[in-house]
């Protein structure tokens, strides 16, 4: 169902905004502006998803106070890995949203999937064959 998939994307964007806060605090100077740009982009997506959930008649899921990180982030190298991980998770929820959505919502989800895939490749230095499709990994 579209509302459920939209809520899942919103939860993932909440987590990404939190995660990029951590990334921004640890990442090296050379990639700080990239992290900042991604942070802003994810806030914009989050806000768009809040509106989308309301449009679908739902109550937007609120952000958690804190999120468990998938691994320790003591330095810039780990911060880059975390950023890539966040984008890869987002690619997955947006791929599901493409499946669940129709029309303009599907288009927006596909754009978000594309952006997450490109950012993940930027952080990692390379891409995967099927972004967002865990079953193809």
């Amino acid at each position, binding site marked *: 169902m579209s509302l459920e998939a939209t809520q899942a994307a919103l939860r993932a964007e909440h987590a990404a905004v939190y995660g990029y806060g951590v990334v921004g605090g640890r990442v090296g100077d050379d990639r700080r502006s990239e992290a900042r740009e991604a942070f*802003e982009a994810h*806030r*914009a997506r989050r*806000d768009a998803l809040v509106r989308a959930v309301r449009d679908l008649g739902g109550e937007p899921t609120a952000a958690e106070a804190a999120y468990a990180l998938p691994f320790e982030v003591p330095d810039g190298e780990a911060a880059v890995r975390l950023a890539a991980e966040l984008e890869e998770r987002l*690619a997955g929820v947006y*791929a*599901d949203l*493409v*499946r*669940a959505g*129709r*029309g*303009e919502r*599907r*288009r*927006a*989800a*596909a*754009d978000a*999937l*594309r952006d*997450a*895939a*490109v950012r993940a*490749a*930027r952080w990692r230095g*390379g*891409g*995967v*064959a*099927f*972004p*967002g*499709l865990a079953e*193809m990994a």
Partner: protein
Amino acid sequence: MPLPPSRPRSGPRRRTLLASAAGTAAALLAACSAGSSPGGSAARRTPTADQRALSRAAADSAGLAALYDAVLAVHPGLQARLTPLRDTVRRHAEVLAERAGPAAPSPSASAPSPSPSAPVPSPSAPAPSASAPGAAAPSASRPAVPGEEKQALRLVADAERDLAGRRGRELSGLGGEPARLLASVAAAGAVHVYLLEDD
């Protein structure tokens, strides 16, 4: 804490709107040709419409892989950079053909879809001799591979970009699972554009 207003992004926004309009038209056409009732939603689409789209997508990816091959034949120096991307595109063609089903023609056997924006050279095209860089014989249907590496990379990047863009615009006409697959392949294409243009 108040959120800052999001920055205006007229370029992408305009593209999204245009793409959306094209997608809607595609959805209407698909619905008409499939003969669905007015109450029938995208979920009720006949399997053949999705199969046709997937098999066309498989042929497009096979054509794109052939373009990589043609560029690699002229520029062996680009091997390390292009081969992994070419292999990914081949994998796309295989998986798309698989999902299209047994009735679908295999990507290698099917004719490349007519597209002015996606040059599809034959993989068996003779490579121009190394002594004549940039002298690949142009033909009506087959663009020459530029003799300059930079230009050759741009040719591939443009083909990737055009195909990814076209796929993005076609999503509205598809059922859920094929759309998810094609959106992923289009996203991979956007990643290739980034990797090809990143210096």
